């Protein structure tokens, strides 16, 4: 059985060129150690036998499939399709076939060697420490394993110009460059940012985090503007004998003394904003393995809902169910986000939010009707229930 596996490998991999031939010898030996007893795969078979054939999750391969282990060199090679006549390399098989036509081959050689009885192949990652190294977590697609290997274990050669984020796979880089700078981050206070660094810095200093939400309900910036605008009066007037008698010097020429870089949300919106702050708090308190970036991103992902809810009072079709679906984070993690150590009850903390959340239920009935659909099975709904 092993011998035939090695043979079928060699015939179907001929188009990949001579580079892989030495790897096949290695692979033959390693294949022996790879092919494990069938008990885990039996289990897989049973679960997959139930319904129609659907796409399996990555890294849960078809147990009947043949396991192939390619070398790192093969995985990162581009132009793996090589013309046997002139040895020119191509990235895609179709391109190679097009090229072969140009060689005017006699009819027999034109046909590619038929692929009889070739079983589905799955691929394992050559990196021993990788989770996809084991055959039971092999990936089903050659392109997939190549990209995985580059992403996880490869050198990050492609770099974004704007944010200098690095990528190993060219298509990943291309996809990022398309969206980089176009992505918007929204803070709890309503301000929109196109740059992550401004967003991060703002968020650290913003007064509108969930635990500070009491401040949202009070007026914000008007008091501080007056201190700036009265400065010139103190500064210029008593000192200069040369001061012109022109009184216009002493008036503030700025037509708009209202220094609001936060858009003032309409009163109806404020309870939303707060309510969504708690939503965002729960959403952001994701499972522990989630990165800091995603903590911030979740904050922004829920952001657009604020305007959505405000602008369409009926229907709310653009309600982001996906965002709310992340609510299944437990209560402990919510508190963690709010700054309470897991297991302890802080003096402020979740309790203080409850009276205000009740306020939301009263003032935003149609909104809560939407929310009710999503939260009936949620542990977080207990917070609501306590009102």
């Amino acid at each position, binding site marked *: 059985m092993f011998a035939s596996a090695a043979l079928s490998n060699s015939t179907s991999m001929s188009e990949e060129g001579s580079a892989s031939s030495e790897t096949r010898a290695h692979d033959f030996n390693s294949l022996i150690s790879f092919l494990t007893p069938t008990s885990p795969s039996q289990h897989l078979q049973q679960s997959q036998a139930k319904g129609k054939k659907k796409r399996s999750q990555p890294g849960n391969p078809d147990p009947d499939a043949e396991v192939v282990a390619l070398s790192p060199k093969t995985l990162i090679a581009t132009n793996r399709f090589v013309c046997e006549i002139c040895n020119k390399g191509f990235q895609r098989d179709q391109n190679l076939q097009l090229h072969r036509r140009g060689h005017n081959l006699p009819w027999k050689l034109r046909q590619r060697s038929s692929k009889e009885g070739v079983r589905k192949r799955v691929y394992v990652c050559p990196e021993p420490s990788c989770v996809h190294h084991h055959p039971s977590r092999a990936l089903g697609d050659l392109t997939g394993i190549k990209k995985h290997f580059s992403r996880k274990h490869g050198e990050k050669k492609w770099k974004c*110009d704007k944010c200098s984020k690095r990528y190993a796979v060219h298509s990943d880089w291309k996809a990022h460059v398309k969206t980089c700078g176009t992505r918007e981050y929204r803070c709890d206070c309503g301000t929109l940012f196109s740059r992550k660094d*401004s967003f*991060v*810095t703002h968020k650290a200093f913003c007064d509108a985090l969930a635990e500070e939400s009491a401040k949202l309900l009070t007026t914000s910036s008007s008091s501080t503007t007056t*201190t700036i605008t009265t*400065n010139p009066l103190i500064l210029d007037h008593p000192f200069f004998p040369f001061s012109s008698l022109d009184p216009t010097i002493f008036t503030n020429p700025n037509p708009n003394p209202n220094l609001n870089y936060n858009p003032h949300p309409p009163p109806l919106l404020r309870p939303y904003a707060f309510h969504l702050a708690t939503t965002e708090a729960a959403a952001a308190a994701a499972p522990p393995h989630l990165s*800091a970036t995603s903590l911030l991103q979740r904050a922004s992902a829920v952001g657009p809902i604020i305007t959505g809810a405000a602008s369409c009072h009926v229907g709310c079709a653009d309600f982001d169910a996906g965002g709310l679906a992340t609510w299944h984070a437990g209560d402990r993690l919510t508190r963690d986000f709010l700054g309470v150590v897991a297991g302890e009850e802080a003096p402020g903390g979740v309790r203080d939010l409850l009276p205000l959340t009740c306020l939301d239920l009263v003032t935003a009935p149609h909104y809560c009707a939407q929310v009710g659909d999503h939260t009936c099975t949620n542990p977080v709904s207990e917070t609501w229930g306590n009102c």
Partner: protein
Amino acid sequence: MASKKFCKQQSGRRNMQSSPPYHLRASTSSLSSLDDMCSAKEWALSALQECARAISDNDSAKMHHLLWMLNEFGSPYGDVEERLASHFLQALFSKATDLGDSRHNMLVSLAHKNHSFDTMKRVILKFQEVSPWTTFGHVSSNGAILETLEGEPKIHIVDISNTYCTQWPTFLEALASRDGEVPHVRLTVVAMEIMEGSTVKEMSRRMKRFARLMRVPFEFNVVSVALELCELKEEEIEIREDEAVAVNCVGTLRRVSIGERSSFIRLLRRLRPRIVTIAEEEADFTNTRGDFVRCFEECLRFYALLFEMLEESFETTSNERLVLERECSRSILGVIACDKGGGGECERREKGSQWSARLEECFSPTKFSDDVEDDVRALSRRCRAGWSVVAAEGRASGLYLAWKGEPVVWASAWKPQNEVSEVSESYRNLM
């Protein structure tokens, strides 16, 4: 008034490309040809310089005439030249009447009163949004610190900066996002008493809260220093044995009295940092201290760049810009009209090459990595056009942020001298 008509005509954007740099343009005009000047900008700058010369030469009549004309022309709410004229007029007037020190003190206490945390926070955040002036130093320093201290389980950052801790959120976020264990971070902020107590409390609260959000174990300490930074004592900064120290100085080296600068650098060395990151504005008000006219010209050159940058970065009716310009005004007064024995309040800046010469006594320069350089270049591209990053050459090391080709901010990183031998010594002891 003829001069007023001038400024009305010169509204709107001028094509900066065709004009020669300020320091060349203004120096050659004379008093008699003032009325022939074809642009208000040239007039204003040359009038200011002429006035400085008149003060230096003790030419009372000329000085009075120019002060009067500048007063008519200048306005803190006008275009760049009008603003420059207004603020430099204040400085020249104070110099002429020997009232510099008292006026400076008055401005300091005024700032103290009016600059609440909320105000300064809003001003600096807005400034950072529209211009890379301060974030250039932040990005380069954070990059260097992150790279140097990678793998360290405990980090202690001694922050002596004038940017109200706005550097640290992105630092903490980067720490939390990168692969590997998140280190324990201690941040010791050296606060000068010009920063009032409530400001420090607010900074502390925000940083701690944000670190919690980022899930970075965090400690925040403050060391207060009275007026002069050189009063800082290293015992006040508690350095623990098991931590890796980074010293970060953004915009504050200039607040050390000129005579104490070498001593201050030695103090930094005694903190045993693994890396020292510096960001300073590129101007020389130190070596020019003895020559009033030269110092004035350098001051005018630098602040003309700064004011022009502010005009092009902010919206016309920006209050934040006004606050920043008032800060500049006080600085200008400090340089032109005060000396206070070279005291730190005058904020006598030095150029990168000069700081480098001082730092080389205790430290060796370390080049920013390619990644950090890419990051600052990307930063300079994100803002409105006009910014670029230039590598330092010659005596200075590090990078410059340049506005329209002129270097304005200098950033560099330094490691203690003889560091390699120290490390290998301790390894040998372990074996």
